[in-house]
């Protein structure tokens, strides 16, 4: 079966891929684009490990039909660090918010989607934002603390010289 061309922006860079009918975005990002930061957890929509940001909204790449992202802007963990880790990633390290790391990419993107729209979220808003992501290791407290700390430290981008 003929593959269909799809073009989209991936972490600020134009990308083109050929996708097959029914292929999901997670697969295209991992195998086509070579970005391994969105994780393959359940492929059912329940774990959130495959979360990416599409046109500003957090989305499950495993449940996104690849050809629907024509012209879209897709952000993944691979685009979070800007030379150095972002304050969000830093806070995950210092708050022990990652253990096995399987959920971490999805957690970071759900948190990033929140901080983009709401740089100073309340604790409840953080809980809500990560409610579609499952972590089996750390418990959620450490993750919530990390997101709140990141918000206090500039969120997604470092402020000032470094």
């Amino acid at each position, binding site marked *: 079966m003929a593959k269909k061309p799809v073009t989209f922006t991936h972490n600020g860079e134009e990308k083109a891929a050929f996708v097959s009918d029914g292929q999901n975005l997670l697969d295209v990002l991992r195998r086509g684009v070579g970005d391994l930061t969105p994780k393959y957890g359940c492929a059912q929509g329940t774990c959130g490990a495959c979360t990416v940001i599409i046109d500003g909204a957090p989305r499950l790449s495993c449940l996104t039909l690849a050809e629907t992202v024509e012209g879209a802007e897709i952000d993944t963990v691979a685009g979070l660090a800007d030379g150095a880790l972002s304050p969000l990633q830093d806070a995950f390290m210092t708050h022990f918010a990652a253990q096995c790391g399987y959920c971490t990419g999805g957690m970071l993107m759900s948190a990033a989607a929140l901080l983009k729209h709401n740089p100073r979220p309340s604790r409840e808003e953080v*809980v809500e934002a990560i409610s*579609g992501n499952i972590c089996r290791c750390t418990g959620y407290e450490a993750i919530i603390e990390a997101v709140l700390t990141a918000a206090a430290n500039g969120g997604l981008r470092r402020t000032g010289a470094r």
Partner: protein
Amino acid sequence: MPLTVETYPTLSEAARAFAAARAARFMGGGTILMRAVNEADQSFDTLIRTTDRAMTEIRTTGSAVTLGAGVTMASIAASRDTAFLAPVARLIGGPQVRAAATVAGNLFAAAPYGDLTAALMALGATAEMTDGRRQSIDDLIRGGPTRSLVAAVHVPVPQGGLHFRKVSRIKPKGVSVLSVAAVLPRQGGRIENARIVFNGMGARPVRAEAAERALNGQALGASAIAAAAAHAAEGLSPRDDAIATAWYRREVAGVHLRRLLEDIR
């Protein structure tokens, strides 16, 4: 069996292709269908979709709101026109699911999904099909899948408000044990034409007719609430699933209806 995806610029073209196809499914947000695709479900060989912008429009027309079939839970939660439905939309899945899940997809989601549909039924909403027919949500979902597609849902704005309660084991986004939606119009302090709908108490959202009868003509007092709660599960047949047993659902339906009604008082 290889899968084919067909994308049409207009809903009417998609509807024609859907009516002509043998084993096709129409894709809304894909939160249910893509899971089936990922699992190589062999019950369909074609996915039909449309990029028609009318699908995602929210329009206010007098005392009703028209939701395009492809309006997402996130758009309902964000739009001022649908403020009365926003608390329901916010209870569906996590943020990632809400950004994709559509109104029409919820109508055909298998139990115990269907929380928005319960609210739409309580509101007396009607579906506009691509063949021009308009039918109540109750009739549409009772009839099961059709050869025509849902184009939009017309939702009357409730006078006394929509009351909704979702019961789940995992907060804030677990799947429903059950959910209950109520619209209780009042005349001179007495309830008239109560509409109470349970999701999770059957294969699809259902009216709790015995509870409605217990409330009609009554003031919303302790005795009317007790009577409605006592009859909450009458005539309903919940299922056993991974979330709860039918027995448990039947036991707690009245408790949650009572709590919802007490919160309104």
